[in-house]
């Protein structure tokens, strides 16, 4: 195979790969997550949050947690979009750690379940 044929082959391959790759990315956008790994770099350990299980098996509505979605019918916001790891001092939005603790512990307590740290962290 001479140099020109090599180059033609490479250019053809590149175009085909771009096409297939673009179709794959466009046709399969990320959907509702099955699980979410919460890793805020704290010492208590990561948390594997069973998102689909809470949503489907425990019969929770999306809006129970994604509380800003009432005005935004098209897209759910990720928690970390507003609840920052280190919010500015005058911010009224609770930090990521505080809001997750309030949401998870609060909801479980409402159902009469007491949580230990290791029930969520580090498993």
């Amino acid at each position, binding site marked *: 195979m001479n140099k020109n044929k090599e*180059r033609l082959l490479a250019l053809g391959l590149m175009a085909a790969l771009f096409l297939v*790759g673009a179709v794959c990315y466009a046709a*399969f956008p990320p*959907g509702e997550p099955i699980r*979410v790994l919460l890793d805020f770099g704290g010492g208590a350990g990561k948390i594997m949050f069973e998102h689909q299980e809470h949503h489907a098996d425990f019969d929770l509505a999306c809006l129970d947690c994604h509380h800003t979605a009432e005005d935004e019918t098209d897209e759910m916001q990720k928690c970390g979009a507003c609840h920052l790891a280190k919010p500015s001092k005058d911010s009224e939005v609770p930090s990521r750690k505080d809001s997750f603790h309030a949401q998870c512990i609060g909801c479980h307590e409402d159902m009469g379940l007491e949580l230990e740290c290791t029930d969520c962290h580090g498993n």
Partner: protein
Amino acid sequence: METKKKFVVSHAPHWHNGNRVSRKSYNMMLAALPAVAIGIHQYGALALGVVCIAMASAMAWELILDLLMKRPSSIGDGTAALTGLILAMLMPPTLPWWAVITTTFVAILIGKMIFGGLGGNPFNPVLVGYAVANLSWKGLFDFDAALAGGYTFGFDMAYPLTAVKTAVANGAGAEAAANFSASALLMGQQTGGIGAIFGLGLIIGGLYLIIRGYIRWEICLSFVAGIFVTAYLFKAFGPEGAYADPSFHLLTGFTLIGAFFLMGEDSSTPVNLIPMLIFGAGAGVLTMLMRNIGAYADGVVYAILLMNILNPLLDMIRPGALGKVVENA
């Protein structure tokens, strides 16, 4: 009179045997195919998207950078496509497209082109791209986080090296590693990079490359031996049950892809026997030190990069020149 000729070197012109750089590139891609195919089978169309975009963008960057640097186009030699493919093999299938094309950009520009293109690079371009991207977007390259959202498999979905790393800190590495059987790891029943999960496929591909002479067995074998011996020493002389078996370390993470595909890069690896053995074994020992007592779950990428730095020094260990100098002749 002795007429038997022992060694003949003819005058120019010589006859080119037809071998080209592109042949090695396409053969390496062929060897990677079984592992990539199983990865795409396991992770689906998302993985296919990452592989295609990584290969295509690496080739596009090479084309564009050759034009900008006013150099002859080198896209035909297939090394850019190979760089893209091996990078994709190390990536999780959920990596966004912008992260994929940025990674290939760093690999092609900083890994290769600024050193003058193929043959001038002191580091493996794949490793440069991966290391920079991995340090920049740790969360995107975390296999546990990346796969949690969209996948459910019928086997333990924890990334084996991270699970064992966490357990080693508690002195229970052997127990954690026992959850992953060698046969499951060989057959791709583990989470990890798109092309790094199917151990058997990587071994078959590697053996093909060694038999065809595209990679040097001395480097591959000494790397594997370095990992095996160091892991064995940790296991034998460390606290009881604290460290995982050598076989676990051989079949998880980037060990096999490192041995056969990352070590197969020409310009960043030594050429003589002793330096090759030191290079491979050193990378193996460093990998295990990082895995067992270092900060990273998998040290293959950084271990090989560190040995790349040593490469020019290692190349100074070489046979003496033929002939002799006669004083006062």
